[in-house]
């Protein structure tokens, strides 16, 4: 059962990568990366149990913190003026024009 859950999480991580590559706006990509990080934490915890080494949970804790810091940092950077014109969908830009 642990291995089945790991495989399910790996499939979901693949879906998140697809959305991060396809995603039309910048925020879709950030959302996909955030989801990828959360699923990575779960995968590390599950793999620790699969291999019988629960010390992996320390790495999972550190990874959760790094994921949060990176998402907040990218969001702060995206508030700067250089991002203003890149963030919008091409459709909405056309509508506003």
């Amino acid at each position: 059962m642990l291995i089945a859950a790991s495989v399910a999480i790996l499939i979901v991580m693949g879906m998140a990568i697809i959305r991060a590559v396809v995603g039309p706006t910048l925020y879709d990509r950030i959302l996909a990366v955030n989801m990828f990080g959360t699923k990575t934490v779960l995968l590390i915890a599950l793999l620790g149990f699969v291999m019988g080494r629960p010390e992996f949970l320390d790495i999972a804790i550190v990874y959760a913190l790094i994921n949060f810091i990176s998402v907040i940092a990218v969001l702060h950077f995206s508030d700067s003026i250089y991002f203003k014109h890149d963030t919008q969908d091409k459709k909405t830009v056309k509508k506003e024009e």
Partner: protein
Amino acid sequence: MDTVISVASLLCLLLGSFLCLSGGVGILRFPDFYTRMHAVGVTDTLASAMILMGLMLQGAEANVVIKLIIILLMTLFINPTASYALAKAAMYSGLKPLLNMQKSKRG
């Protein structure tokens, strides 16, 4: 007693995997950024909680269970905060929600 605990752990892991997969399908198939964020934000917290609870039921030592509880609490605090910050940044940058589904052919 052991069988009860293992069956409960199996059910938690199954439900968590199902919720993870539904979140993955949601992030691929929803038409808009905000609806995608709904799919991810709703399923992330409950799926993580279910999988971590399934692992907690299998953990033998108190050490492991305490670490899992720490991970669960951090997930429950961090994910809504990140979702809120993401929605606020997207809204301030002028990304409009998709309001009328019939006008758009995407979906």
